[in-house]
């Protein structure tokens, strides 16, 4: 697994076995526990402030770097996706779409603010402006159906604005999650900004949704029971919940600046102006 920029095994010592389409065993994966998750939250919280304080340009450059590193290792990812049942064509497409999606969000880093913020013409001598800020530590249950594009599609929009995250990778397609963590680890992403766990969603969702130091949670999937549980648990500390269902993660519909702004808070600042115009109005 990938926690705080390191690759620890689960403290629980448990594992689960991945099999290919023919039913042959291909790897033993860590079965992450509550304790692993709690450790990851500590790391994510530590990483949040320095990450959110970086310039948008810097975060953009780092996302672009992830894309470059992924491109450099594309053969390995294509191979892994094929081991997990994709055809060569599907695997190619998934890897190239993942690279493009990282570049897409790299581009948004220094732009989403420009289409979301505002200067507000209040009736008074004030400079009043509204900007978006990252919400904090975000947990995410990645889509179960895709190994790589699912991870990329949830991580990029969460971290691009300055959040840190703990992501549970697809259980049945967990093989590329560790390789993708290696890509992240060699792309100037500070440790703790992205934490990737492997394991069972049903077991971990109660922890992902109840932790008091988590600000927001993303769930990708359509399990009604899980969605209801997450919504209920979120009331404990008013987590912002984002549910993504019925999305084809390979298509353009899976990417949008509004996916970024879901994980932000809106801040408005009032600043006096000595006097402005004859009527004393604001900007």
């Amino acid at each position, binding site marked *: 697994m990938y926690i705080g920029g390191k690759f620890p095994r689960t403290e629980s010592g448990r594992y689960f076995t991945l099999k290919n389409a023919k039913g042959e065993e291909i790897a033993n994966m860590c079965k992450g526990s509550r304790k692993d998750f709690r450790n990851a939250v500590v790391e994510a919280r530590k990483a949040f402030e320095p990450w959110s304080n970086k310039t948008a340009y810097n975060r953009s450059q780092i996302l672009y770097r992830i894309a470059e590193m992924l491109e450099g290792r594309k053969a390995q990812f294509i191979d892994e996706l094929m081991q997990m049942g994709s055809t060569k064509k599907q695997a190619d497409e998934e890897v190239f779409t993942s690279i493009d999606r990282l570049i897409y969000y790299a581009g*948004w880093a220094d*732009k989403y603010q*420009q*289409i979301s913020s505002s200067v507000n013409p209040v009736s008074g001598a004030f400079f009043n402006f509204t900007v978006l800020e990252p919400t904090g530590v975000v947990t995410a249950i990645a889509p179960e159906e895709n190994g790589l594009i699912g991870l990329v599609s949830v991580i990029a929009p969460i971290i691009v604005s300055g959040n840190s995250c703990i992501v549970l990778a697809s259980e049945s397609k967990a093989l590329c999650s560790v390789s993708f963590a290696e890509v992240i680890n060699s792309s100037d992403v500070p440790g703790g900004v992205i934490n990737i766990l492997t394991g069972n969603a049903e077991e971990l969702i109660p922890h992902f949704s109840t932790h008091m130091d988590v600000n927001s949670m993303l769930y990708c999937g359509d399990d009604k029971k899980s969605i209801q549980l997450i919504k209920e648990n979120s009331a404990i500390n008013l987590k912002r919940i984002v549910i993504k269902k019925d999305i084809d993660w390979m298509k353009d519909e899976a990417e949008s600046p509004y996916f970024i702004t879901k994980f932000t808070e809106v801040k408005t600042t009032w600043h006096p102006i000595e006097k402005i115009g004859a009527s004393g109005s604001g900007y």
Partner: protein
Amino acid sequence: MSENKINLKSNWDLAPSLESTSHINLKKKYDLFIGGKWVKPSSGKYFDTNNPATEEKLASIANANKKDVDMAVKAARKAYDTTWSKLSGKERGKYIFRIARIIQERAKELAVVETLDGGKPIRESRDIDIPLAANHFFYYAGWADKLEYAFPNRNPKSLGVAGQITPWNFPLLMAAWKIAPALACGNTVVLKPAETTSLTTLLLAEICEQAGLPAGVVNVVTGAGDVGAEIVNHDGIDKIAFTGSTGVGKIIQKAISGTDKKATLELGGKAANIVFEDAPLDQAVEGIINGIFFNQGHVCCAGSRLLVQESVYDVVLRKLKDRMESLIVGNPLDKNTDIGAINSKSQLDTINHYIKLGKEEGAEIYQPEGKLEKKGYWCKPTLFTGVAQSNRIVQEEIFGPVLAIQTFRTIEEAITKANNTPYGLSAGVWTDKGSKIFNVTSQLRAGIVWANTFNKFDPTSPFGGYKESGFGREGGLHGLEAYLEFEN
């Protein structure tokens, strides 16, 4: 007061710290970059580009003419029709990202060439010009597939072929300001750099080749103003982007008046830098220095008029003179250098003309002591005090390290004086009081206002002027608009 200051004439000379030129590899001769190929000029003529710090020749540059410009416009049109306008925004973006990355990889080389060709201190080309140029390409690369979000419900479309003319003060950076948004919006480009500083733009053409940019998307034709005129007047051009003097800007606007060509003009300036008595004065002095002496004052948005509140005039002037004594004028390749070489002989003549004029107008001049190199074009940092609002050194753009200082008593007086100019590019305001900052910024008729800072640039931040400083914006979301047409 001055007896307590450090004696800079004692043994305070810094050991030279010269940037190496060994890693640059200039060709002896540069041809035109047209349709993805390096083409000899049809006239067969070349002109020299020189190092203004040594007056030595750096390379021969092709002198384009009407025929070459025509070829370049046709190549740009062909590239527009057959490849570039057919690519998706995502694919366009990837090429632009690649250009950005290669600029970063070749940053040191570009910085050294910029300094050799233009005379600016290596510290500035290394830390400002080149990184900002790369940043511009990164920023606009990201917009290529996101234009619908910038202009919702307006169905943005590219214009076609853009003719672009850049100045000699920030050669590569201005090429980046022009090319990056044009390409991101789906246009192709014919660009002419200023004749004294063509080299980094030609290296950028090489970089376009390295990035695999389709042939004809970017074309570079070199030469003087007559080549620019050929671009402006060519029927195949859909849009003109010009950065340069207000005089030439007016000629261009007139020249295209009978056509449907769109234009953005980024012209001259005479920025007021206003210092209030409640300003952090040491910080303000640094800002004044940076405002006027950055890049030898060859900056259209330079803070060339200082307006100081009367109550702090004496102390500001003393601090300013002290600070000017420590400025190092010399070899642009030396990392200690603050003020490099004046870009050309003719610009040095212009500056010296204004210095003479300032004295004739009765203003009092101050220049720090010290000798200038014999070879090369140099100008000491210069202050004029006791100037009147009507003096030509207050009204006209000098484009050199020459600061005119005036005083004021009230905010109203400062604003009236600041706005009393045909220009309106930039302005500065220094005060610790936030509410006063916004009072002043809201009344200044200028496109960029810096508060408690000066000469800051960023690709996300729109740049451009009011009044005779031109129209249209470069940079930021607003900078896209200049390269698009809309349904409504």
